């Protein structure tokens, strides 16, 4: 009986968990905001290859992933991750906007085939606030999504 109850509770929790809305997260594929450049590069090296470097401490990484073709990473002056942008594959497994976070909590704009969802997470207990932005031309599937720190802009 105990075993039956345990299985039931586990199933119930699983269902609840799967039904729970996805919360915005300050990372993409293990690249987190505020991560050091060394740590980010170690992770990026593990999942892909550096394609090019851009001005303002920006990098383009091709990643081995069924859903994402590239990660764009920007660092701040202290060489910590300022933003990460994922470029979704359009010829593979697609990513839905709701896979990023709960659409109900997103600010949305839909203009003539340009869809944009924005989530803003306020700073709390020593963690910087951040923003998530998902873009796409398809109403269901995104083309890019980004996570970026809110506490600074890199405009030197």
């Amino acid at each position, binding site marked *: 009986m105990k075993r039956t109850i345990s299985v039931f509770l586990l199933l119930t929790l699983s269902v609840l968990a799967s039904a729970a809305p996805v919360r915005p997260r300050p990372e993409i594929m293990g690249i987190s905001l505020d991560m050091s450049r060394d740590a980010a590069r170690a992770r990026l090296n593990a999942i892909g290859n550096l394609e090019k470097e*851009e001005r303002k401490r920006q990098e383009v990484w091709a990643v081995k992933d069924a859903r994402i073709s590239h990660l764009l990473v920007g660092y701040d002056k202290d060489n910590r991750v300022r933003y990460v*942008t994922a470029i979704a594959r359009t010829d593979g497994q697609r990513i839905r906007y709701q896979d990023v976070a709960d659409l109900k909590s997103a600010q949305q704009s839909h*203009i*003539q*085939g340009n869809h*944009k969802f924005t989530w803003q997470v306020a700073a709390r207990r020593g963690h910087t606030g951040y923003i998530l932005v998902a873009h796409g*031309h398809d109403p269901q599937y995104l083309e890019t999504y980004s996570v970026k720190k809110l506490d600074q*802009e890199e405009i030197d």
Partner: protein
Amino acid sequence: MRHNSFRFGTSGRFSRESRRVLIAAGFMLALLAAASFGFHSTRASSPAGGTINPTATTPVTWVGTATGGGAINAPLGLIAPEDLCQEGLTCDTYTLTVGGTAADWSGKQIRVKIEWLLPVTDFDLYIHKDSNSGPLVASSGRGATSPTDPLTWEDTTIDPAITGVGVYTVRAVYYAATLADQYRGSATIESKPAAPPAPPPSTETAPRYQNYQPPPGLGDSAGEPTMGVNWNSGAAMFIAGLQTLRVKFDDTASPAPATWEDVSASNTSLRTLDPILFTDSDAGASRTNRTFVSQLAGKASLMSFTDDDGATWTISQGSGINSGVDHQTVGGGPYARNPDGSLKGGAVQLPGPNGQTYPNAVYYASQDIGLAEIARSDNGGFTFGVAIPMWTLAQCNGLHGHIKVAPDGTIYVPNKSCGEKQGVAVSEDNGLSWTIRTVEESTSGDTDPSVGIGSDGTVYFGYADGDGHARVAVSRNRGATWEHVQDVGAAQGVQNTVFPAVIAGDGNRAAYFFLGSTTPGANGRQTDRSFPGAWYGYIATTYDGGVTWVTANATPNDPVQRGVVCTSGTTCPDGTRNLLDFNDLTVDKQGRVLAAYADGCVSSDCIRGVDRNGDGRLDSNDNDGTEKATIIRQTGGKRLFAAFDPPVNAKPEPPLLLATKDGDAVNLVWSIPEDGGSPITGYRLFRGVEGGSESLLASFGPEVNSHTDNEATGGNFYYRVTASNANGEGASSSRVFPTVSESPCTGLGLTIMTDAAGDSLDQIAGHDIRSLHIGEPFSADGSQKLVFTLKMTDLADPLTPNTQWRVYFTGANGNGYFVDMSTDLLGAVSFRYGTYIHNADNTAGTSTIVGNLDAGSSYNTQTDTIKLVVSNSKIGNPQAGGRLSRMFVRVPVVAVVPDNANYASPNPAVGYTLIGNAACQARPAAPSALVAVGGQGKGTVILNWSDNSNNEDNFFVERSTSMSGGYIQIATLGANVRTYTDNTVFRKTTYFYRVRSGNAGGKSSYSNVASVKTK
């Protein structure tokens, strides 16, 4: 310093980080191996050097000997640059001596190559002239490699015909390499590749230009300027740094004088980041001439717009998007419309702040989070809509050039690197969707390309190609295909290009402005302070739809920059990024081209090319590193709008004439006007009286641009001047009346200080000081006197009693003096002088009356002036060059002082420097009747003239072999001399002579010109 040669879109390459890990073990092994052999303080290749001669048929070879390591030891972000490498450890050097003469290498070049075995290994190659600290001649630093796309070499070429023979150092930098995979080097002679076909020659004549700079204080920090022109008012609007400048040109004279004004908006003059200006006059009949200015900021750009050239501004919401990390741009123009006239993409025009609908779309673009985005405003820039991505960093470079909108509403945003090509992002639906269209023949460049759009929609795309050359491509189908791709700098020998800017007019006319250098080498655009080139502003123009271009150096004889123009952003060495990232080009209503740039070379030494540090070459060390705002404005030649082309056989335009009165003489100077394409042949100067007669005062050759009228007494004359060319005499300048310039010799003398009106405490106008003047009018008896003149608001009789009008000063000998006019209890007037000791704490000091001033001291209630004449001997006997300083004025009435000037903590700089009595004597009359005849000998000329003056000190004889110019002074003779024998002439040569007299007051005008042909 890694070179930007990563291939776009490939995968499976080894990253630098992974290679770091891979080589780490190898490096440790290498260290062990090196330790077993012992380290050397320096280590060259093996062999250390060799010679290659022009006729060599076999290569010279060597192998590397350094231990390797490279990136492991380099700080993050500074990956194994050459200047950080350690000889023998992370780099080694092979000394290659190139034999023969430069001419021997014609048609040949030397290919220098280093090779290794493993794709994970990476070396970089640098070649310097003379030594490793000499100029960088060539380099090769390709990036990551992979097993599927192996790249196991670096190579580059030396062209001794250009860079010379002698010693070169070939340096291999061990970027990611160890002893386990050592490189092998070789130098091989090969034929130089055939030069690309020369662009088709143009039959057009290049337009002519004038450069304009604002006065000091305006436009002093003007890197990466942008500009526009209001087609209604004609005003040019210019932004750079914190200043928005309005420039007005007066086209009644040539070159048009310019007036610069600071009209900065409040919210764009506080902080500066990538400022941008756009005037909505580029395309279509719906141009509004509204000017937008914007500064990059974090959440939204700081933006304002004006409809009256900056007199008033409306603050905009700003970009409405995160303006992001770099290179914002603003543009605008007509909306793209559907066949039924509706706006494409469902765009809806909205009322602006004034309730009116703005006819055009306004766009704002920038990059953030790895995306280049654009937002549209439908209410004239007051608010902006949602940002739409144009591309990602995975597709194109993040930076972009400036937005241009075609008359049909198509939007173009240029980019220097999209898949290793240059091109444009194009939107045909008012910015909702974007397509990237590249120029197939192009390669990625260092600076942003630019688009100009003709009235028929023809797109002109100017870009600094990957090889540094200034190329242009033309599209008539919105960038789908390109034609007439060509190097517009080739005719001028331009090898290096930065900052392209393009503008078009009629469909078949466009102009392309770029900074160019005839010195080759990518290092000229990177970080090499030893790059020995000079950069000039070039403008190429087409009148046939881009089939041919005619290119002119628009800054001749005055470089924009000496040394490198660094395009490597914030990693640039100090003083090499002064010009920042771009320039701009626009066109006015009459089709004149106007270019905006920052001038990095403004001093005389820099312009002339003085080797300031004496290192034998002109490079960044000899540059000023300034960023002075400059506008190039077209003055002549065909315009971008054919309707405004000047006539074919044009006469010169009216010169700008300036006239200043100097005593009885009038100094006249005039500009060299636009010549209509035919050289100026001469000038005619006229003098007249308003309402009266006018006469020709003098005619001059084309080299003469000034004249002194010594016979201007007795009339209120005006002057005007005309210029002539082979097509005839051009229109006259405006009539100009001489302005009076202050002279210590005439009038009141020099103004020493002024004081506010109405600030007398007792409100008595006779106590209200207005100004103090000092002069030294000439005294025929040679006496040295000074005349102080106090001007009051209203000096009236009777003067108030018990009052002093007193001027205090420190004499040239350091003692204190005063001169004054005073009244006693009964109002009796006296003029006195004395000594004064000023208290150290600036409170009133002690004055002692010594005696009376000189005759001539007086007051005048008509002119409200008090004249105080004092012999120099009464105030310490100052001589010419001596200075009276710390001058102040007080007007005490009994115990109160209703007014004073410069009294509280007197400024010691307020004063007067004496010129001496002799300097103010009248200039002598000009000699006349000059005659030149051959002397008895075959090498002599005898001159005779009439002496028309009695106050000359000297006569000056000048000679030339041309009547119109080129005179040099050959003799200085004493007073009353009337003849001179010139025995320094060549035989059978025609000489021209002229003579003038002079004294301490100056020189007379010239005599007639006399000529003679020697025997």
